[in-house]
């Protein structure tokens, strides 16, 4: 599939992968939500009927997004960003509460979730800021400003409360890093995560011994290579690590709520519970595991038919795929997702403008982050976080949000071809 297909010069690989995911997603939503006899695909009473409508409408959306000029997105990025922040803030006044989170606007029969669109807006804003001629990402001041652009929508989303959607903003660390964010940030984030999980798994004493050993190793390594040891930095990082370890239990036991503790304990294998808090994950694993090599066949999944996995058409849609399409189907889906993310990355690196590159990188990161957290949760290696699987999970806002996110990039990318 070349870059030239007729007169429209767009990346058909991305379009193909997008189509595969949305179409395959709908088949599985149909299976997961089918109850009794179906009354035609366009039955608006049924979830699969609605989703089909969202898919058709997203084609309209795609045409609209592609019709606008590339310059439009760059020029109006700040405006879009501010508008999006306002729409998030407006939720506190006009929002509708669904499942305990005030994350929706109500328009007649439909609801819209602005946080799904805020990701695209933030990516645009970030691209515009970093792409600005006056911004130098090597400077700490500019790095902080970039972080602020990302943090503001996340901080507004957290108290909705929708921590899952807020967590996604962590994905922006990748484009920032790509653009020259001090590696210290990434190391710090990774060490924090390692210290946190490590302390939960092997306990405070184990961690203290471990840190001491690492420090000693570093010490002898430097000695051996006749490097100088920067003592203040050496001591401070050691103390910092130790201090954190002592904090972990406090944070875990006092700051976290019980449900968060439960989710961690489950994934770390510290508690086994298949009935209450672990029910979802256990049933999801059963559904996937019973698929074996080739699955039970479309519409034949007993776990799916019997509604054993809650929220199967939304966050747990991957369990339907595992049950009905088996190992082969699941792995193919993983490969399709990876291909999409890698393709976007590949195209992002080829953007001429920094704006386009940052935006493309953000799109890849967001899609990948969703995929990693969602599938990781469904197959039981990541704590339960309620975020959808892009393009596959049921939901109009989610589908449109990702479609807009993706196709703004497709549009930018096509402008790139023209100017070659």
């Amino acid at each position: 599939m070349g870059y030239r297909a007729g007169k429209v010069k767009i990346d058909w690989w991305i379009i193909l992968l997008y189509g595969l995911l949305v179409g395959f997603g709908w088949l599985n939503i149909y299976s997961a939500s089918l109850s009794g006899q179906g009354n035609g695909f366009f039955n608006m009473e049924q979830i699969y009927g609605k989703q089909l409508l969202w898919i058709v409408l997203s084609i309209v959306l795609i045409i609209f997004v592609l019709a606008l000029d590339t310059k439009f997105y760059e020029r109006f990025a700040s405006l879009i960003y501010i508008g999006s922040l306002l729409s998030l803030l407006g939720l506190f006044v006009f929002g509708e509460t669904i499942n305990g989170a005030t994350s929706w606007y109500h328009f007649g029969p439909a609801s819209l979730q602005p946080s799904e669109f805020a990701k695209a807006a933030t990516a645009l804003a970030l691209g515009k800021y970093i792409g600005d001629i006056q911004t130098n990402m090597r400077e700490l001041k500019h790095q902080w400003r970039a972080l602020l652009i990302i943090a503001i929508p996340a901080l507004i989303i957290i108290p909705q409360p929708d921590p899952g959607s807020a967590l996604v903003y962590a994905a922006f660390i990748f484009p920032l890093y790509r653009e020259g964010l001090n590696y210290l940030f990434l190391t710090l984030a990774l060490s924090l995560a390692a210290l946190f999980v490590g302390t939960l798994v092997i306990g405070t004493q184990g961690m203290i011994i471990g840190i001491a050993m690492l420090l000693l190793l570093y010490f002898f390594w430097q000695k051996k290579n006749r490097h100088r040891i920067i003592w203040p930095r050496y001591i401070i990082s050691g103390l910092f690590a130790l201090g954190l370890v002592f904090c972990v239990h406090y944070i875990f036991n006092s700051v976290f709520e019980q449900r968060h503790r439960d989710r961690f304990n489950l994934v770390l294998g510290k508690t086994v519970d298949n009935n209450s808090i672990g029910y979802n994950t256990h049933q999801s694993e059963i559904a996937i595991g019973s698929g074996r090599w080739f699955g039970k066949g479309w519409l034949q999944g007993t776990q799916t038919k019997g509604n054993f996995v809650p929220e199967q058409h939304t966050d747990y849609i991957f369990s339907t795929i595992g049950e009905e399409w088996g190992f082969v189907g699941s792995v193919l889906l993983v490969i399709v997702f990876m291909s999409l993310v890698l393709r976007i990355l590949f195209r992002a690196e080829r953007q001429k403008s920094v704006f386009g590159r940052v935006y493309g990188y953000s799109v890849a990161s967001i899609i990948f982050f969703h995929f990693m957290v969602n599938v990781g949760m469904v197959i039981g290696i990541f704590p339960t976080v309620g975020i959808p699987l892009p393009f596959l999970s049921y939901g109009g806002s989610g589908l449109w949000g990702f479609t807009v996110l993706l196709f703004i990039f497709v549009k930018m990318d096509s402008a790139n071809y023209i100017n070659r």
Partner: protein
Amino acid sequence: MRKNLLFLIVIGVGLIFIGRLFYLQIYESNYATLSDNNAIKVVYDYPQRGYVYDRNGLLMVANQPSYDVMVIPKDTKPLDTLEFCQLLNIEPIEFNKAMGRARRYSPRLPSVVVGQLTKGEFAGLSEKLHKYPGFYIQKRSLRDYQVDHSANVLGYISEVNDYTIKENPEYEMGELIGTAGIEKQYEEVLRGTKGTKYIQKDNYNRDIGPYKDGQFDVLPQRGQDITLTIDAALQAYGESLMVNKRGGIVALEPQTGEILSLVAAPNYDPALLVGRQRSKNFTKLYYDTIAKPLFDRVLQGEYPPGSPFKTLTALIGLEEEVINTKEHISCYGSYNYGGAKPMGCHEHKTPLSMTSGIAYSCNSYFATVYRRTIDKYETPQEGIERWRQHLRSFGLGDYLGYDLPAGNKGLIPDAEFYNRYYQYPKYKWYTPATISNAIGQGEVLLTPMQMVHFTSVIANRGHFYKPHIIKKIEGGTTIPEQYTIRHNTTIDPKHFEPVIQGMAEVYQYGTAASPDIGIKGIEICGKTGTAENYMRIDGERVQLTDHSVFIAFAPKDDPKISIAVFVENGYWGSRWAGRIAGLMIEQYLTGTITRKDMEAYVLNGSLMNEYEKPYTGQPFKINQ
């Protein structure tokens, strides 16, 4: 590095996910089972068990409906225990116990609270049970016995145990299975095929329709009826003759091997092991270790055969050509074989030929024949093996291959047996060491079933069909092939005539010549037996009154029935066993009894005081 980080992470996460999927879907095989347990409910539809008929088409075993009150513990709501127990007609303690058991077994699966209600009890209950969620009634089919005898033949059904379920996964907890008698032997024929329905459930355990449109469902198939070779009337008569006696009667049709009667005494009413009182009654029968009603004496009891065995000694002697029908052997009241005490014999005329030897049951005669048989060979080992080979051709010393689940092999000792016993070659042994085998008193052990079997072989003049109890299976035209194969013995048919003549003369002037034992107008051949036996009382070997043993067949030239009767501690052969054999033969062949006084004597006769003797704790006299 900045360009490649995300690329590497994406690849890494993808590989981790594929690995995890491989673990879940391919490596770990449990999930498929878990998913089936979750989502598929299996409902069984139990068919009626097949009926059982006797050889004349008389219905012996049918079915009756019965109702179990079932509970699914997690569906129950708090209830007024006292009121509910009144409704079920059980004690609250019992009810709580049953509920506890049900909860322990599974809160989600059904368990029985009260089993096997009658139709009357069910009628009152069914109207009110809907007030108690979680409880429901399941219909079952139980056995309904049309006869009050033959419990040892018919056997019984009971709930399958864990072991059986492990061996035969087609059975489920709480299902019934034949555990004894023909119920066990013909379980697969009688039980039919249970219907199976697979039902798709949802997460609330509600039915949401047939699984895969019912393509795996199986319809129930009623069990097949079977017809036995048993003559129910003869069987009933035999059991009445054995009242207050212990032992057994087995009768065969020699020309086919069909089992006409299989009486074990004491017996019990088969209906005792049906219904709510089943376990109480079973415990009572099971723990009666003195009378042992559950022990099938005719199939499982191994006894020294006693004098009837002399007919076999004679046949082997003739075949080995160590004796002929003309030679006379003298008896001096005992047979001296060099042992500490000579083998005793009783008063009779001497010298004796083969026929009169059998008629008078002379110990000396048969000891001589036996000794010549063994000594014909260079070593006693060879001789014993040869002797044993002949007996094995009769089917003795092994399971007879009949279609009943109980039985024992008996014992026909081989050379190895004596080698081990006498520590050969450290010590040598010779024929006299085994001389008691000649008269059925040595190491030889036979079950009453094996006794009647060799009687049939003699009646047939040297061939037999394996004994069997199946006459017809519904829908089938033939019985199992193994029962239609003719087996021949190693004895030439011509040698049987003199032995049969001897058995006829038993009735004319021999050990059963008393006028009330024979039957007018029917030529019977028989042989008495009086078997010594011992019991351990407080560690001491104490001799008890002899067992009364008798074998017979009739009529002599066209045998229709062969019979073995065994009465524990009945003293001499013709005293009880001989009389019972005569009555059974007359009943079977003519349908009437001519000698009512003799019949009354047997019917009313009791050996109970004989059986109590060893348990009195006092010294006692035997053979009175």
